[in-house]
Structures are given as C-alpha cells and as structure tokens.
C-alpha cells in the first residue's frame, strides 16, 4: 500500500511517498534526508508531536510565560498534556529551560519555560 506523508521535522516539509505493508515501512521516496524515513516509521505506529502553550505567572513584568515540551508526545495525548499544563501557576522570576512538569504524565517529555521573566520590584 502506498501512502503519502508530509514530514514536519524541518521547514522543508518533504512530501514522502511510502510503501507500507502491515504497518512496516518497505521503502520511502521524496525525503531530502534520512530523518524522513524515521518520521514515517514513527508516524505509522505512534504519531508524535510537540506542543507549546503559555502559563499565567504572578509577580512578573508580564502576565504570561511561554512553555513547551522537550520531546514529541503521542498525538492522542496532546489535550491531556494541555490539561496538565493548564493546572500550573508560576511565580516570577523564571528562566529559560526551567522544568515545570518533569516527565509529564509519564510520557518521557518535560515541560520547560521558554521565556525569561523578571519579577516586578516591590512585589
């Protein structure tokens, strides 16, 4: 069976034609780099994506701080992870790379801060 994929791993967004049989990838065509084959192989058994969102922060110079997952998470768990992140409330200051949810929902991906937020003086 032939199926086409759009690799999302880099901005090239290659159209990849894959030959599949019983969930096995027999061959790929159209990928500009080897990561394309890995992507298709993963996509067939367990598609994963990264997500980014933001979290309210108290006492900071801005009201929201951006966060993201460090590793792709299963597509079917995206909204569960969003729910978990939406429970979080932060206090300034925070720094880039700071982990707010280690191994979120046991998915082997951390949720980290992606923006520096200083605290507002006098608070």
């Amino acid at each position: 069976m032939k199926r086409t994929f759009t690799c999302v791993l880099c901005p090239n967004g290659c159209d990849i034609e894959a030959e599949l049989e019983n969930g096995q990838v027999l061959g790929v065509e159209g990928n500009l780099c080897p990561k394309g084959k890995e992507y298709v192989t993963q996509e067939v058994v367990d598609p994963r994506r990264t997500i980014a969102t933001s979290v309210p922060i108290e006492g900071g110079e801005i009201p929201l701080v951006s966060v993201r997952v460090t590793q792709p998470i299963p597509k079917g768990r995206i909204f569960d992870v969003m729910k978990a992140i939406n429970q979080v409330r932060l206090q300034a200051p925070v720094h880039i790379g700071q982990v707010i949810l280690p191994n979120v929902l046991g998915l082997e991906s951390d949720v980290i801060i992606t923006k520096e937020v200083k605290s507002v003086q006098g608070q």
Partner: protein
Amino acid sequence: MRTERQAVIVGGGPAGLAAAIQLYQQGVKDLLILEREHFLGGILRQCIHDGFGLTRFGETLSGPEYAHRFIQQVEDLGIEFITDCTVLDISHDRVVTAVSKAHGMIQVKAGAVILSMGCRERTRGALSIPGTRPSGVYNAGVAQSYINLQNIMVGKEVVILGSGDIGMIMARRLTLEGAHVQGVFEVQPYPSGLPRNIEQCLNDYNIPLHLSHTVVDIKGRERLEGVTVAQCDEQLKPIPGTEEYYPCDTLILSVGLIPENELSLAAGVELDPRTKGAYVDEYYQTNVEGVFAAGNVLHVHDLVDFVSLEAEALGNAAAEYLKVGTLPPCPLEVKAGQEVGHVIPQRVSGTRDFTLSLRVRHPLRDCAVVVRQNGKELLRKKMRKALPAEMIQMKLLGEKLSSTGDLEVCVE
C-alpha cells in the same frame, strides 16, 4: 545621550539584533539599537511554538528562546539599546530622530543606519470585504499577541481567512485553548503557507482547508455572528450560488505581510513594488548611501533563521562601509525573469560572492532555478517542488561572474 554614533539600528527584532552583534564583532562597537516595544526580540516574543533555529543553531527552539540567544549576546557584549523608543524620522544625511519614555526626544547622527523595522499585517481594509464591522475580526498576529502575551482569549467559534503560516499556527493555538476552528479559507487555488504547517496545524486537528474560497459577507452588529463564504473561479471572483453561511464569533485574517517602510521612504529610500521593501545591492545597502536594510523590512521571510543570516551579512558589509568609507559599486541589475516573483539583491558588483533570494510566482514541480549572465548559464538548481510559500536561496560565486552584463533569474 551622545549625538553621534557609528551605527544606529532601527528595530530590535532578530534582524536588528543579529546586525548589531555582527557589526560589533567586526570592530564597529559604537552602536545604538532603538526599539519601540518594552522588550527586545521583535515579533518572536509572541511566536511561542517551536521550529525556529534548525538552520542557524541546528536545534529546534521556540521563538522566545531563539530571540533570547541574540538578546543575551547583545547584553553580554554591552551593546547599547533603548526600548520604549519609537523612531519618528530618518533624514537623507542619516540623522535619526526618536522619542523615548526615558530620554524624551533623541537625535543621533549615524555613520550608518540599519533599517530592521520588520513588517506589518495586511488588514481587512486592504481586502475590502463587504458587510458590517462588528468586533471579533482580528489579524492573525494580533490574535497571537492577545492569546500568547496578554492572556486574552479571542473567541470560541472561529473561521480563518487566508492560509498564511500565522493563520494556520493560530488555528492550532486556538484549538489547543479550547476554541472550535471550523475551517481555513484561501482565495488562491494553492495554500500560501508551508506544507508542514498544513500538516501539523490543520490536518492534525481535523481543521479543513478550503482552497479557492473567500469570505463574501460579514454579519453581526456589536459582535460578529457569522460569515458567508463562496467558492471562487480562476480569476479569484466569487461564483454566485456557491455561498455558504458559517455562524462564528471570531474571524481571523491571515492574508499577508507588508514590509514596514514609512521611515525608509522619509529617508529617501526607493522601494521595489514587488517586495514592498527597499531596492538593495549585494551589501544590503539601499539607494541612500550608508542606509542598509535586512529582515522583514526588506522582504517578507518565512523563516527567522534566514533573517539572522541576512542581517549578519549586512553587518559585515556595513562594517566594511564604515571602515573603508565606501563600498564597491554595484552597476549590474539582477532581473526577475520567468516565474520569478522577486529577487534580492536587485543590484550586484559582478566581482564578489553573494546570496540570491527569490520566490516563485506559482507552485511548480520538477523545475530548475537558472541564473544567466550575457546568455551564459552561471547556475542551475534543480528542485522537486518550488512553492510561493518558501523562499529559495542560493549562493553565487564571484569568480563565475563577469563585471559587465545584467543577470537574469528564471525558473524553467
């Protein structure tokens, strides 16, 4: 406040930051960055999704992280910057006038002026959609700023007009925040954003993309109540009888970006009607001596990595200009030929290496970008696919060029 500087950088987004760092590293240290917002970093502050930096840093970062790497370097090097400072005018002889919260009115005479003001979004006015003017109609970038910077949710039932990358990224963002995005409607028969965003922002969330469709009417008094969408023919005209009504409280417009060039015009900079940015030579110098431009103010980029690389090349050239007092002349024109929408730079010396950037007019498959001079083929780059959404870049070597004869770029 000193009133003379080697270089003044107008705009502290990725282009301005990278240009400043490069100038500094080339020995031009008497610099001043002027930024209108309260923070450095430009539009990247609100682009919280990842996918930045693969070309420049070899890893995928979010917009704020990408910007932070440059901000950190500016701070570490001690490059002077003023935020909450809007540049109001640039004169032909490079006097920059600005107004700042902390310093009031500022006037600085600059050896070189770096234009890095970025771009703004096309608005509903530019589209002339009929109907009422209720609230609930937002530009994609404005909605992005509300949701990602100000914690204001824009609505629950959403329709998106235009398949630009920011619109698609907002489709995903709104869905993650619990809104229902009914669809993305694009007047052209092909999408204007990147294929990966169609996949990871629309397909992943079952958001349909309707090509050759546009919004023909907007309904609602105070707040938006719904929009009427129609199919379009090849001339992009709505086809009567194909109208369909979508109830919604929010319409997001993602219909293109325009370089922000009011200041450039004041300085006497000539604009290319195709890019809506300055005409530049291979040194990113405009027609006004000592005034340079890079980033989205020059031509709209889809990837910030290329913005940084372009601004770094500008930094090298502007440093040379300041040290030598002049740059080699660039008498040769680079012409946009068949299927090429625009080229940057538009003028070259014919003696040195340069980077050519271009966009195709229509989606093409199995084609080649060809550069010719005096009928001779200088470069041929084969492409499996070429999309208007993707900027194409290639390097031309000075040794292959002749110092006479214009260049022509075609896609065939």
